[in-house]
């Protein structure tokens, strides 16, 4: 491999690495957002369960 070939390869690897790093950061962020959605969904379902109307009980 000549010096020019090494430098050209390095330049394209830098571009690839930076874009890949960016996509990985975005993927991690989306994972966090997914966890947040799950948390909110579980809170909403808990609140709905608490507010659900009770069945009238037969006395006597």
């Amino acid at each position: 491999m000549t010096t020019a070939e090494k430098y050209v390869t390095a330049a394209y690897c830098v571009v690839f690495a930076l874009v890949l790093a960016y996509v990985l950061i975005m993927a991690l962020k989306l994972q966090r957002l997914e966890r947040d959605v799950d948390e909110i969904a579980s809170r909403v379902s808990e609140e709905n369960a608490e507010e659900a109307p009770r069945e009238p009980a037969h006395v006597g």
Partner: protein
Amino acid sequence: MARTRIPLPVLAVASLVLVTTALAFVFFVAPNDANQGFSQRIFYFHVSIAITAYALFAGAAWKALRHLWKRDPRADLESYVFVHQGVIFGTLVLLTGSIWAKISWGRWWLWSSDQLVLFLVLFLFYCAYFMLRFSVDPGPQRANLSAVYALFGVVLIPVSFAAIRLAKDIIHPVVFTLKGPQFGGWILVTYCIAQVAVPVLAYTLYRLELSSKRLDIRLRDLREVLA
């Protein structure tokens, strides 16, 4: 009128196909340059990324103008994401440019080149945008200050672009003149493919970041409502 937008998966596939095609042309189709030999192959992505970075900063200024003029509620976030993308692509310009400079001139950086220094000034100007934005509490004041700053930065784009043409001691090569591109054949074809591929990739990343930021804001609002 509702805006029709290209779906994100379609953009992602288009980016992948175009960037792969561009790389195939760069390494297997484009001939070696008569003067610079193999090292000239950095040119295809370096120039495409530089023009894309200018376009992203111009996009940020356009959205900033829309925020200040039309009071478009989406414009502030869009302007911020454009600046963020512009800084990422600006970093790539500086890195690929330095590597190319090392092969061609034997130096990583030349302070005597107006084009290089002015691009660095433009890059640092937009880096400082984040310091300004995050030093102010979220709200209309932050949006207005950020918009004015992004709008001022647009002045540096034509200065940076024209510097190479106005400079007397040209070190940085000039490949686009008023007579058109100073190359042809497969070099021009490869450059055109790269020049389409890189902005499509940038737009895909822009849309991806914008979607995640909007989702983040909506989730925060939802959490506040539930609290």
